[in-house]
């Protein structure tokens, strides 16, 4: 049988967001794939340049719906380092707790999607039911179920009360039981293992070559977690990244589940440590921030999907450039390698096991509509696009 193209996306039931993989298929086997991005470009990086520093916080929250808190953390952390600020320790702990709660949410979400992609609706519904517990916790702590807007430059917006902390403890206890239950399922259930084991394998050398990040690279046996560097409150806590050797979809799921348990531990430890700290959560920062022109910084945090990186360069009262490198962008380099040789039936499973987030990853290419040729945009052109601070 001759090979043919099977379009996977941009609209496909397995994808929640528009993304396109051109699959070259021979029967049911994939012989090649090409990733096409650009259906969802929001132009956020460019928009930063047209806003004062403070408004950028709200913009960065909107990069992603699932890991918005990490984006604001990363952005605020960068600006704080540009301004040379030391935020209160309590604020650091609160940032960490929200981040870990959001990680729990994101990991459970991703695992639920994996369960759905392998056609096990029951597990999907179970996991999503338990994810509600995390959502409720998020609402309890921040007032919102998504897009918490907890971070401000110089600290956080809200403090926790003792009662809230106790509620969180109660939810964590329930969640821990559930995570243990799911660990049992992913470890022992033949039906689940059947679809995940030896699928989407990424060996350690290949992982080094393509450098995915987060649980995806840790599942291939590479010790890489930004939390180890001890940013924010992680320096006060004991932390050791979870590494697996399997390199396949099952290992990636197991790593996520183990990280859920780890997050629960981190939240507990933080809540205990927070008790003794003064109730100061934010520095007093004027709304109109001015940073010396040309100052630049790189800020990193460990988002649920891996290392999130912000490069920020100042243009005085607003950024000159904000460059966001999202974890999924980094992970997609390895996608073609992971898909090759597997069946069509494995494509959604492999994709879901990477826990991708397309909207924050999207890039675009300029294509001349007459000649159909791709064109490289010069720095001068991009500076004058969209009426940013430099365009005017």
């Amino acid at each position, binding site marked *: 049988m001759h090979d*043919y193209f099977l379009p996977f996306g941009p609209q496909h039931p397995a994808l929640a967001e528009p993304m396109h993989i051109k699959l070259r298929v021979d029967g*049911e086997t994939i012989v090649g794939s090409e990733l096409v991005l650009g259906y969802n470009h929001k132009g956020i990086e460019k928009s930063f340049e047209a806003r004062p520093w403070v408004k950028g916080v709200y913009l960065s929250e909107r990069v992603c719906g699932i890991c918005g808190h990490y984006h604001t953390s990363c952005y605020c952390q960068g600006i704080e380092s540009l301004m040379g600020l030391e935020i209160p320790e309590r604020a650091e702990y609160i940032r960490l707790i929200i981040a870990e709660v959001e990680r729990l949410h994101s990991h459970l979400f991703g695992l639920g999607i994996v369960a759905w*992609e392998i*056609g*096990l609706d*029951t597990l999907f519904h179970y996991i999503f039911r338990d994810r509600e517990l995390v959502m409720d916790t998020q609402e309890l702590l921040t007032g919102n179920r998504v897009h918490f807007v907890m971070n401000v430059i110089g600290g956080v917006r809200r403090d926790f009360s003792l009662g809230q902390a106790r509620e969180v403890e109660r939810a964590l206890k329930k969640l821990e039981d559930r995570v243990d239950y799911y660990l049992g399922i992913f470890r022992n259930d033949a*039906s*689940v293992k*059947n679809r995940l084991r030896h699928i989407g394998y990424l060996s350690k050398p290949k992982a080094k070559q393509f450098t995915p990040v987060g649980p995806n690279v840790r599942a291939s046996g590479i010790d890489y977690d930004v939390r180890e560097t001890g940013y924010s409150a992680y320096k006060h806590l004991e932390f050791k990244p979870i590494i697996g050797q399997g390199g396949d979809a099952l290992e990636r799921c197991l790593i996520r589940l183990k990280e859920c348990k780890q997050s629960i531990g981190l939240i507990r430890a933080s809540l205990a440590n927070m008790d003794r700290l003064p109730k100061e959560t934010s520095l007093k920062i004027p709304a109109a921030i001015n940073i010396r022109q040309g100052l630049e910084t790189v800020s990193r945090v460990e988002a649920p999907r891996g290392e999130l990186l912000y490069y920020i360069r100042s243009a005085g009262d607003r950024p000159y450039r904000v460059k966001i490198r999202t974890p999924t962008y980094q992970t997609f380099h390895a996608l073609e390698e992971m898909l090759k040789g597997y069946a069509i*039936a494995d494509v959604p499973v492999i994709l879901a096991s990477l826990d991708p987030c397309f909207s924050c990853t999207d890039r675009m290419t300029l294509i001349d509509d007459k000649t159909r040729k791709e064109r490289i945009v010069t720095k001068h052109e991009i500076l004058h696009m969209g009426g940013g601070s430099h365009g005017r």
Partner: protein
Amino acid sequence: MAADMLLILIFQLLVFPGFAAAFFAGFLYMGLSRKIAAHMQHRIGPPVRQPFYDFIKLMSKENITTKGTIGVLATLCPVVSFASMMTVLMFIPIAGFQLISFPGSVFVVIYFLIMSSAFFAIAGFAAGNPFATVGSIREITQLFSYEFPFIVSLITIGLLTGFQIVPYSAIGFPFALFAFFMGVLGKLMLPPFHIPEAEQEIVAGPLTEYSGPRLALFELARAAGYWTLVSLGAVFFLGASDIITFIVYSAVMLLALIIFRTVFARIRIDQAFRLYWFVVAPLALIDLIRVMVGMY
């Protein structure tokens, strides 16, 4: 006398166990299995009458033939698929109602059941869509996988009943029963064998390009499939001879299907092939040999 016979014949064809029963009971089975599965999954689920609503809604829609679809085939396939299921129904004695019965009717049943699945696959090839094509290839592959143990199980019991479909309790032949049940899962494309129409992989498989009345007819064919196969199991393998046992055994069969549906993840087509040929088929053969040795 002849007029009476004709009336009974028409009643059986159109009302019970024929068209009307297949329509109502089939959609009821589908609605019930969705509802019960939903409760097993900790959600509320659609109302039991949802498949009826769907059917009526689809029937009232415009008939669309997409570019590249062979229109005649696309209309014919669901009709033939439905008609073959209805034909099978005539051979099954449901609570004393039986239209045709002769030694060897088991083979006719096997033949028409294959027809139904084959036309489902042809419908995919007629649509000219890559997802539909992949779905159809999978459907054919799956047909070749489950058909052998399924036929073996029917022949095992057929040997004991003179190849005639009569109420027979096959509890003494658990492997044949198991093979039949796995065959039903494959034929109805229920999890873990919903491979030809795996939503996450190939959209809706053979039915990707189908909408409106044609899709409604396919739904009807599937409803008829539920009714026919569950009845066949209740009568030929569990031995339902009157209306009460028939209802009880049908419920047992349906519940078993629902439990399978909620417990297992979808398997890949190559895994399904291996499972049917290397696990289910040898087990089914054990019972066949037992019967043959016992008889001859």
